[in-house]
């Protein structure tokens, strides 16, 4: 299988979906002529032209809302936000219109849009550009949200998202764009709501998503080699819908859970998962459910401090050992 970058995988998904369905178009700031701020759409404008790749002014509320309206008539817009952080100026469109129009119309209005862009910290750009709002999105019934941790998932989830009939947010990660994984050449999708067991183990379950899954995987190797703890790593891939079954089966096997996410902890995704575990696997637990997340404060700019603020191997290992006590 070819080894390609996360960026290339997303580009392939977009390219192939544009070719497959004449209604798929891509819209966002600098996506066409400039080739994308992070070069995810590089070459696509040249190949597919103005109709399919559309540069927008800096008007996130307007073009997000416009995409929602267009989708009602069968267009399948893929809206790129240069950063997911910029969804905040379009919240009414995304969190009211995209999420509730179907419901309020009694199921008459469908909104098959994709909203994609990087949602991560660790890049030393300060609080306004480092949001990880998957919990906020997931808090809005009607919206779906996925967080691919590798190139294979990024391509498969992107294609599934584009073909999905509901609004789907795809949370990417600028720190993963340049990383490589094996990705098959033939058409495939990764179904929304199916978690992936990155590594099997017997003593502790780590549940994570996005880039934190990869950090957790590395931490798991150290835990096994140095501390003799056999760790199972569950990569959620999809936050809503959520693969509850895979999480519970793993916890029932290992009897211990550590939840790792880059998001801020207060009302985070892992608060929800922790609730599900205590409710549905209470009798299987040998220890309280532990968490590692970003230190609870706006994202700090200073590099050394930000690298400590977001989960790293050191903090994961320390918390894993606590969960083993």
């Amino acid at each position, binding site marked *: 299988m070819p080894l390609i970058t996360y960026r290339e995988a997303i580009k392939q998904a977009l390219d192939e979906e544009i070719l497959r369905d004449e209604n798929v178009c891509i819209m966002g700031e600098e996506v066409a002529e*400039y080739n994308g701020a992070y070069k995810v759409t590089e070459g696509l404008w040249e190949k597919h032209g103005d109709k399919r790749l559309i540069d927008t*002014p*800096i*008007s996130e509320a307007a073009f997000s809302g416009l995409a929602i309206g267009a989708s009602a008539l069968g267009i399948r817009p893929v809206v790129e936000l240069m950063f997911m952080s910029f969804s905040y*100026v379009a919240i009414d469109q995304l969190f009211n219109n995209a999420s509730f129009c179907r419901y309020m119309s009694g199921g008459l209005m469908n909104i098959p849009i994709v909203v994609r862009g990087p949602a991560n910290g660790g890049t*030393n750009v*300060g*609080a306004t550009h480092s949001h990880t709002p998957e919990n906020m999105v997931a808090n809005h019934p009607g919206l779906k949200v996925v967080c691919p941790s590798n190139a294979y998932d990024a391509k498969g989830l992107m294609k599934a998202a584009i073909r999905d009939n509901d609004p789907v947010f795809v949370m990417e990660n600028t720190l993963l764009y340049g990383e490589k994984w094996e990705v098959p050449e033939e058409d495939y999708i990764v179904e929304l709501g199916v978690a992936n067991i990155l590594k099997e183990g017997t003593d502790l379950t780590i549940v994570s998503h996005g880039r934190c899954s990869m950090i957790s995987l590395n931490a798991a190797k150290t835990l096994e080699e140095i501390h003799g703890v056999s760790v199972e790593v569950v990569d959620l891939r999809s936050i809503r819908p959520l693969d509850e079954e895979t999480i519970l089966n793993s916890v029932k096997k290992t009897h211990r859970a550590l939840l790792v996410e880059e998001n801020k902890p207060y009302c985070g995704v892992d608060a929800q998962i922790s609730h599900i575990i205590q409710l549905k696997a209470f009798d299987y637990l040998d220890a309280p459910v532990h968490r590692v997340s970003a230190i609870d404060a706006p994202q700090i700019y*200073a590099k050394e401090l930000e690298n400590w603020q977001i989960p790293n191997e050191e903090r994961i290992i320390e918390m894993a050992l606590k969960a083993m006590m």
Partner: protein
Amino acid sequence: MATTKKKIAVSAKKQAQSNTSMPGKSKNFATAPINESLSNKEKIDLYRTIVGIRRFEERSLRAYNQGKIGGFLHLYIGQESVAAGIVSLMGKDDHIITAYRDHGHALAVGMSMNECMAEMYGKHTGCSKGKGGSMHFFAPDKNYWGGHGIVAGQTPLGAGLAFALKYKGLKGCALTFLGDGAVNQGSFMETLNLASLWDIPVVFVIENNGYSMGTSLKRSSAAENLAHRAEGFDMEWEVCDGHDVYEVREVANRAMTRAREKHKPFLLEIRTYRYRGHSVADANHEKYRTKEEIEEYKRTKDPVNVIKRQLLDDGTLTEDEAKRIDQEKKDEAEASAKFAEDSPVAPRGEIQTDVYWEVDNDTEGNLKGRYFFND
């Protein structure tokens, strides 16, 4: 005429299009009363500020390329005369707020190169303790309210500063800077209406450098005369050039005076140019504009050269003095890099300070065990 005021849309548009190739000036702004009244020292200070910003930016670029500064670095090189000119008109009750291209405004209000450079290095001695970075400089003691990373996010805040001035009965105005790309954000257009509806003394300054990232003005705004939008809100507007600090002062002075005296908002569009990419990461900026376009601006409208020429010509400055000031600013910028390098990073405990006033101040609410933070 280099400025247009209340022209009908068509002729105003013509004016806007002539921007890149301005014919020879018919008006000498140096003789406008607001500039004529400047002492030699004040004139030299304008030069000092403009050169200072240039040398600081050049030094920060070097630090970025050495990997000392992370994140984004949006340089103000090419636009120096805009911030320098307008800030030189600020009185004690005037306030200022801007976007992420904020270094020029910061230095112009008197922030030190040390605190600015240290902020970009992410050090504890930075103006925001290393918490904000390049895009988020703050100095409320100098009426400078940031440094904002979200495009147009600062514009309602600027109106808020002005609202507060009027509320308190102070005769000041709030200078609210934004870019030519930022005008297309809903928050800005909503703010224009509020400011006019409520007679708020805010002066919006669109620094029109022709591009928002890789998108030219033509490709982002339906009408090229941006200030003209004020008409729709029954607001005064004006368009002028930004490379001549005297012109900037002459036009801005009228807008600011009107705001202070009549509590009326004003929309000012200043044509300027950025020499570098959008941020340093925008390395291919010669793909969306030509090298000739950049060189032409540098050759004919460079803010440092324009003011220097004027001061040499009218005898305010000698070549030697100009060189000495330039060297002083280079040295100051160099020293700021050393200061930043030698400064410590804040301790980890600082991550969770400055979040809540109540927690920082150990109020009873905090002591009672109310839950503020996870962990």
